[in-house]
């Protein structure tokens, strides 16, 4: 006699597999964890709202054109002027100076760590980079003011006057040093993700180590490297303490890094340290500049996402 068992029906007298009663505890935990994740979203939304409400009020009194196109920044003075360009160019100049240091040296360090360094060298270099990343930014700021600026003033051989005591160049250079570990470690991670087989193939074809590094590994890790650089740019744009201490508080519409200049972040810090009564135009100016900073960083992040997607190489 054949025994047929129908697998879709439960066996007689046996319980069904699967939850027989709802597990409330599990659902509660899931909800709680979901709430934790929501906190970050809620905070972002809160910040955006808190930032943009006074900004909208600000632009009711000040025209967008004056804000974006005029070149005199004096919002707290009696004859107030609201052209944000001096702050924007200062942010741009200090960021470019930072990039001039952190991109070549960061990538160089990353390539060295990933391709050339022996185990011992790595074990010495990586902690050193961590230490660099751990130095407080206010210390960097005073380092720029008290060591780098006098040094630059002494060895200046370039065109134009030597740097003033507060200048964008020292601030930018030291910012670059601060950002260097970030770029180095992210780029190195990206390069390590390039499979060994690609390198092996290149060596097998007779490439030198330099050719493998620059023509196989770096292009292969390009999306990660670009992401690292964009992160570096975001950090440079948002850096406050170094520029506050070393670049000065003179709003100055110039592209010459040897001059004193006040970046957007430095203005927010300085104006915030003083005392603007809530609701005045001076108070709202702080938010307007903050919103401009937010928009700039947001645009850069979007750009970075697009670039990363474009250059991404997926390896099996």
């Amino acid at each position, binding site marked *: 006699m054949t025994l047929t068992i129908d697998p879709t029906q439960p066996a007689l007298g046996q319980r069904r597999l699967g939850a027989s009663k709802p597990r409330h505890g599990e659902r509660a935990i899931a909800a709680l964890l979901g709430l934790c994740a929501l906190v970050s979203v809620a905070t972002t939304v809160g910040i955006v709202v808190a930032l943009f409400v006074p900004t909208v009020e600000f632009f009711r009194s000040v025209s967008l054109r004056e804000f974006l196109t005029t070149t*005199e920044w004096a919002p707290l*003075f009696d004859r107030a002027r609201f052209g944000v360009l001096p702050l924007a160019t200062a942010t741009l100049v200090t960021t470019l100076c930072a990039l001039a240091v952190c991109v070549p040296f960061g990538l160089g360090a990353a390539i060295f760590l990933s391709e050339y360094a022996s185990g011992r060298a790595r074990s010495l270099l990586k902690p050193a980079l961590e230490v660099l990343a751990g130095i407080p930014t206010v210390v960097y700021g005073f380092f720029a003011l008290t060591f780098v600026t006098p040094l630059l003033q002494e060895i200046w051989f370039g065109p134009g006057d030597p740097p003033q005591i507060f200048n964008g160049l020292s601030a930018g250079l030291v910012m670059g040093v601060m950002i260097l570990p970030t770029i180095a470690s992210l780029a190195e991670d990206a390069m390590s993700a390039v499979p060994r087989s690609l390198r092996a193939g290149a060596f097998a074809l007779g490439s030198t180590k330099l050719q493998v590094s620059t023509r196989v590994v770096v292009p292969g890790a390009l999306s990660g490297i670009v992401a690292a650089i964009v992160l570096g740019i975001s950090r440079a744009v948002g850096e406050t303490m170094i520029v506050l201490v070393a670049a000065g508080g003179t709003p100055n519409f110039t592209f010459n890094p040897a001059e004193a200049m006040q970046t957007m972040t430095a203005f927010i810090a300085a104006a915030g340290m*003083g005392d603007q009564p809530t609701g005045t135009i001076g108070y709202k100016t702080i938010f307007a500049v903050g919103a401009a900073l937010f928009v700039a960083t947001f645009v850069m992040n979007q750009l970075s996402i697009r670039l990363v997607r474009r250059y991404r190489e997926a390896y099996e």
Partner: protein
Amino acid sequence: MPTPRVFLLSALALALATAACGGGSTQQTAPGGQAMANLSGAIRIDGSSTVAPLSEAAAELFQQQHRNVQVTVGTSGTGGGFEKFCRGETDIADASRPIKSSEADLCKANGVVYEEFTVANDGLSVVVNPANDWARCMTTAQLKKIWDQGSTVNNWKDVDPSFPDVKLDLYGAGTDSGTFDYFTEAINGTSKRSRTDYNATEDDNVTVRGVSGSRGGIGYFGLSYLEENKGKVKGVAIDGGNGCVEATVQTVQNGTYKPLGRPLFIYPTKKLLARPEGLAFVEYYVTNTSAITKQALFVDLTAEQKAKLNSQFEKLKVAGS
């Protein structure tokens, strides 16, 4: 049963939470008749960065006798200090200019009642870099030319043809500063009327650093900062119409340092004066101006000013008790 690790972590969290929630210095009003040495409490001072070193010196000397009274001195600028003062956030406002009518109205609206005491004199000093040997004396007209609203003077030779071709580097007080109000009124004619493209800060130490690091630098702040930084910056004699006058204790006191001689004020609240430690501190401040101004390198009050101050304070004590 939770593991020992969970217990340890929750105990740590609890300990941190209680430490954070409790604590902080609370104001204690000692009952009348308690010995002077047992005074304790916290006094918050904020305002002018010019007056701050004076208040700090007063606090230091006072705390030598009354170790349990905590005095904190902030430097938000005279204007900023009054904002906080009239919101009831501070006990004493330091000011390098008298309180404005708008600020007085704000205090009145918020129920903040105060007294005004003149505690020192100041010669607002114009300073240049030590390597600057051409601007030993400047007229108020020259200063106005540099600092006036809309001024485009960027080089020393534009100030005076006899000066060399050196770039002007401007450092000065920010808009919250009483020094700013006073300087612009004395030099440019109207308070707060000034050019805007200079390194504006409420922290006079930044001005010291700027001027000391720049050959063509010029800045202005209270006399005590000049005295403190004699090697780093150099004072300029001011010609207010009667010849070049250097800022010294004598010239400020006898009124010949014109137009930049000015009195400095503190504004304690009546509420502070009702507290024993507050009354003791303010009494110490106004009766020991000589010692305090000497310590802080300020210009002491004239005998006339001192007499006026003492009678004002005596009247207050009588009225309060």
